């Protein structure tokens, strides 16, 4: 995973990669939370472009970050999920907690 924080837009950009399951999500969660608490971002962008697999552990990961960011006034954008990942996001009702987007907005700094 690569992390980038843009101080101007207050966006924390996380380029996730590989397979997100119960085994791998713990490390991702620890790294994300360290950055979230360090910067208190206005927006957390989770980029799924390089994610090849995700099960409900990924949903837990998103829900947990939502619970942290929401009281801080932050929002979550789920970027470029593959069709099978989008299906799980929809099944879990993630569009109620976050914005699912296919395009990289011009505000996103990689």
């Amino acid at each position: 995973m690569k992390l980038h924080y843009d101080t101007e837009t207050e966006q924390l950009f996380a380029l996730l990669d590989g397979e997100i399951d119960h085994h791998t999500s713990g490390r991702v969660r620890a790294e994300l939370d360290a950055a979230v608490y360090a910067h208190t971002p206005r927006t957390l962008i989770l980029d799924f472009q390089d994610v090849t697999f995700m099960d409900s552990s990924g949903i837990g990961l998103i829900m947990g970050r939502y619970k942290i960011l929401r009281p801080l006034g932050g929002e979550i954008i789920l970027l470029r999920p593959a069709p099978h990942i989008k299906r799980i996001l929809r099944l879990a009702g993630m569009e109620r907690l976050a914005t699912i987007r296919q395009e990289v907005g011009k505000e996103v700094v990689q």
Partner: protein
Amino acid sequence: MKILNEFRCSFPADSANEGLARATLSAFLIPADPTAQELADLRTVISEAVTNAIVHGYRGREGVVSVCLRMLPDRVVYLRVSDKGCGIPDVSKAMEPLYTTAPEEDRAGLGFAIMQTFTDSLQVRSIPDHGTTLTMRRKLRGHDSGNADG
């Protein structure tokens, strides 16, 4: 029912083996030529089942997870995942969406909902203190989705 092919394996209840279970299933399904979605669905299903056994069946303790994969007639895939862990006292409660016994680990409580959605049938047999067996079936409808029964 006639079994066209079968693969059985057992492995320690170590989270690193969740990926191994998915890879094993993918390899088993190659001759059946599933669609990308069928493959993705079934990989998710086995991942959920094996994770349940590790997280909820054994709760971090040592144990063995057993998987049985079968190819049945009419392109029906049979998956069975069993553990000898703590069992589920109330199966219907466990199957409620968002119910989880491990919220502190960011578990979404969606494992059963995903397994039910991505299979044609799901059977749960569980005896407290003896373990749980999940049995699932999913018919591969193939690349010609307009002719589902063909």
